[in-house]
């Protein structure tokens, strides 16, 4: 029997998702954002979700749409103030959604830490700022640091460029961003990929995310381009 993580329908991809789950979404702005998986999550209907991502969505597609559907209880991100954000500001200003602001590098490191078995680490980022409030402080070599805890998730929704059936992934240019570390930090990493290749076509020197961090894969050959969709006024669902 051969390992094959490739699925053919979205309901199989998301079959374990539950109300109250914590879900990481790859991407930096629209680059590397797994829009089709997010839309499948809207179709799935899970509620009270905690979303970990760099941004809080644009327009009414992808994460913007998920928030608009009121499926999200809390967003943990570095920058929720995107130029074309509609739904997050609306709910936030009405007190209908929680926000945890995390410096972008601390966010990335907390995610990697979760994937690497590190429950907490010290960092100089945010020392002396409002974001250090309530955090343990410690001095190393005469410099102040604060303790930051790992950030894990039940699921990571990931957009790759190329995958094989073992889950070895590569990404396209700066669409790599948070995707590889989120694969490490989630109990289940669900991947949408443009291309699927045979394992013997995978160059072992060039793999960015090794299959050990991947649970399920689905092919989306021509994913929606967020900025185009927003320009065209597309609203999901």
């Amino acid at each position, binding site marked *: 029997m051969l390992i094959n993580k490739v699925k053919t329908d979205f309901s199989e991809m998301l079959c374990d998702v539950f109300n109250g789950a914590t879900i990481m979404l790859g991407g930096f702005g629209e680059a590397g954002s797994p829009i089709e998986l997010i839309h499948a999550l809207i179709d799935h209907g899970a509620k009270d979700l905690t979303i970990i991502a760099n941004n809080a969505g644009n327009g009414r597609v992808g994460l913007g749409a998920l928030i608009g559907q009121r499926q999200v209880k809390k967003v943990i991100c570095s920058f929720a103030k995107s130029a074309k954000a509609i739904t997050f500001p609306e709910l936030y200003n009405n007190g209908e959604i929680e926000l945890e602001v995390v410096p972008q590098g601390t966010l990335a490191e907390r995610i990697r830490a979760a994937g690497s078995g590190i429950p907490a680490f010290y960092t100089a*980022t945010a020392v002396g700022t409002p974001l250090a409030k309530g955090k343990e402080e410690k001095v190393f070599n005469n410099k102040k640091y604060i303790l930051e805890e790992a950030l894990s998730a039940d699921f990571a929704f990931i957009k790759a460029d190329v995958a094989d059936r073992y889950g070895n992934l590569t990404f396209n240019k700066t669409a790599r961003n948070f995707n590889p570390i989120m694969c490490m930090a989630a109990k289940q990493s669900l991947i949408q990929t443009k291309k699927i290749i045979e394992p013997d076509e995978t160059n072992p020197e060039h793999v960015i995310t090794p299959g050990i961090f991947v649970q399920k894969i689905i092919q989306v050959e021509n994913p929606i381009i967020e900025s185009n969709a927003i320009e065209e006024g597309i609203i999901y669902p």
Partner: protein
Amino acid sequence: MINPDLKNVIKGWDRNSIASKIANDLPHASYVNLGIGMPELVSQHIKEDREIIYHSENGLLGMGPTPNENEIDLDLINAGKKPVTILPGGSFCHHADSFSMIRGGHIDYCVLGAMEVSINGDLANWSTGKGIPAVGGAMDLVAGAKNVFVMTQHITKEGKPKLVQTCTLPLTGAGVVSRVYSDYAVIDITKEGFKVIDINQNISMEFLQNITDGKVYQ
């Protein structure tokens, strides 16, 4: 409060002149992160006697200029989410690795805008204290880069000094700024106060002191 009309009377350096001063202070072979907005101008003023490598915190080292319309790739963007290019010898990495470059002290210079800079180098540039709080990579950059340069107007549109005794806005970092490039002066943050290392030819030290909330000296 300074009279904002002063700004219309005494002309300071324009943005490109400030950018050019910063560009001249970046040594050959530096690794540099330019903040979104005005700091991006710096790259247009690098002289041919040096090569600078630009880092964009979303996983891009060796960032090149804006592409032509027909060369745009939405998967190749900078930290401001604008399409960019990559130069030969550039590379991509994931977010944790990219911020290791910043947080691990490998970025030689970062150039950022400011709302306020205090006399002891505190920087406030991420929040007015109102609206949706959004920090991005600013706190990592000021905590991690070897040298933090601030590029800013010397006073606000309302005529208030941006170089202050104590910041009133939420901090981005404490004691992090090395040098400020404003339209009126280039100022080092030192233990003794704001040390003026270059002053606009149209103004006096007295004028500079008037528009600065904190001791300036030469």
